[in-house]
């Protein structure tokens, strides 16, 4: 229920925003057009109606899956974005996998013996990971691995294979090589975040009585760490990373621009450059919907993972 309210609020804000900015007719019609022609276009777009009526029309069309037509491609905006979406999701998933597979072990290591040299090293690099401007690191990756060493391709998706009707890169060698740098670049921030979260969780759980009890039972250190500690640190990590998934999709805008990755973020930036408003609006509505869905799934997952937490008013 609340998510629907959010969606409506956002749509009103976007709609009003677009109207505050200017009249789309000014862009669409040549300045030489007569007043009569202008009036005709205004009427055909429904722009002579009161604002609330226009908004209602926009909503009705949006529910029918019509978010307007792109001015540039002259195709439905929704279809254009959906066509680009698999590339972005593939990139985001790749980044999340890197962040989790690298971040959790490093975080455990840093939390296990916080005073050791390795732990300090990991923590310092995680501060760096937070501070480094993502786009610049992307450029430096291109400079080192594509220009100087020539190991990896600098842009594009490479060879793709159709999986369930969608082109994917990760199943071919060439596609993987193309994906490695963008995914790594996008992962950097989440990687640092995962390290910090895991470390904090491990340090907290290590002080618990059940850990002492596990030791007292005579379990080995590795078993305590990998079973008892890890299991209890995972819940907050999963929640935060779930919410961060939306963040990764938003940040993909930057990475896609640098590596010319043909995802929906690049489409957004290109559309902003040419003022293709229907695409901007459609992108926003789709991303907001994705956000709300991700949050919902995380909430459900959270209550499944941690039986102490119950959703809604169940008492």
């Amino acid at each position: 229920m609340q998510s629907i309210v959010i969606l409506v609020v956002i749509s009103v804000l976007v709609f009003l925003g677009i109207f505050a900015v200017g009249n789309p007719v000014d862009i669409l019609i040549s300045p030489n057009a007569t007043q009569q022609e202008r009036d005709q276009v205004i009427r055909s777009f429904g722009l002579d109606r009161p604002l609330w009526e226009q908004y209602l029309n926009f909503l009705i069309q949006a529910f029918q899956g019509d978010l307007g037509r792109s001015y540039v491609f002259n195709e439905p905006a929704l279809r254009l974005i959906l066509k680009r979406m698999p590339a972005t999701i593939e990139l985001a998933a790749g980044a999340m996998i890197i962040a989790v597979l690298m971040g959790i072990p490093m975080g455990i290591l840093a939390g296990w013996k916080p005073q050791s040299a390795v732990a300090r090293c990991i923590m310092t690099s995680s501060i760096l990971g937070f501070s480094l401007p993502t786009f610049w690191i992307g450029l430096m990756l291109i400079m080192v691995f594509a220009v100087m060493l020539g190991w990896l391709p600098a842009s594009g998706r490479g060879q793709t294979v159709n999986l369930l009707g969608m082109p994917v890169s990760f199943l071919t060698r060439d596609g993987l090589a193309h994906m490695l740098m963008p995914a790594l670049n996008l992962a950097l921030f989440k990687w640092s975040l995962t390290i910090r979260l895991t470390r904090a969780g491990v340090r907290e759980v290590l002080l618990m009585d059940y850990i002492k009890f596990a030791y007292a039972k005579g379990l080995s250190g590795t078993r305590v760490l990998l079973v008892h500690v890890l299991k209890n640190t995972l819940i907050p990590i999963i929640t935060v990373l779930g919410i961060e998934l939306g963040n990764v999709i938003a940040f993909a805008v930057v990475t896609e621009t640098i590596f010319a990755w043909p995802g929906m973020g690049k489409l957004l930036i290109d559309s902003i450059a040419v003022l293709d408003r229907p695409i901007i609006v459609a992108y926003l509505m789709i991303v907001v919907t994705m956000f709300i869905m991700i949050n919902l799934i995380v909430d459900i997952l959270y209550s499944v993972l941690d039986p102490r937490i119950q959703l809604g008013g169940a008492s």
Partner: protein
Amino acid sequence: MFDLVEPAGEAVSKVRKHIPDSPLRRFVTNFVESKVAVGALGVFMLIFLAAIFSSVISPQNPYDLKQLNILNNHLPPGAKGMTGMTYWLGTDDQGRDMLSGILYGLRTSMFVALLSAFIALIIGGTAGLLGAYTGGRLDTLMMRAVDLQLGFPAILIALILLALFGKGVDKIIIALIVTQWAYYARTVRGSALVEKNKEYMEAAAGLALSPLRIVFRHLLPNCIPPLIVVVTMRVAYAISLEATLSFLGIGLPVTEPSLGLLISNGSEYLLSGKHWVSFFPGLALLITIVSINLVGDHLRDILNPRLQR
């Protein structure tokens, strides 16, 4: 945080000997304990001064076309130009000295980030204080807005605003304010809610002081410590966000080049091996952000009430 309730009895004389009794002095003593943080603060002050005096210390004015010579374009770092001037960090496609460009860019970046942080701090801080102090429907409504906004990444909000309103210094400052105010509001509200129930607030109310005086003279000063940490972290983020947006070509206009724009400009020549055009502005950006974050990290340690000795 700065709890001035005196410990009773013998303990007083014992404690007084070791801990300086002014909160500020205690704060300074704690801060200089970390050499890394002091060093980082020094580096940041240097960068800050360099940004302020960029027009004085720059070897050339990079935006005065009379001083530029197109024949000097893309000189590598350390090369001598036609006029005998040495370009320590090389030149860009217009024959512009990169060092001067970076100093001017730093000035723009700092100006945008600090001004937006300041305005956002005033808006968010006031909102958080009043919300916590008055409570009720206003507070609920405001926190809903904060939650809603923090649910979306800052870059997405900034992207949308700039997509709608176009680029410009004023517009990017507005976008940065909109993305930041919620953090300040939430932080101030959180500590104000705790402080509100302390005895000195009751005493102030008992003295029949005006609510405005209570909020700004008594409540506000006690909410500042956690706020300092958030401000440092947010300023670093604002600098980074502005650079990112300018890099994407939707932030600052070409007439006001910030570090992000310099990097974006250089990225076009990256594939031909002319790395210095984007490498050095990025390095300047990196050093700025890291120094602020290191200071903030240490501030968080010493201002965290849970870790207070």
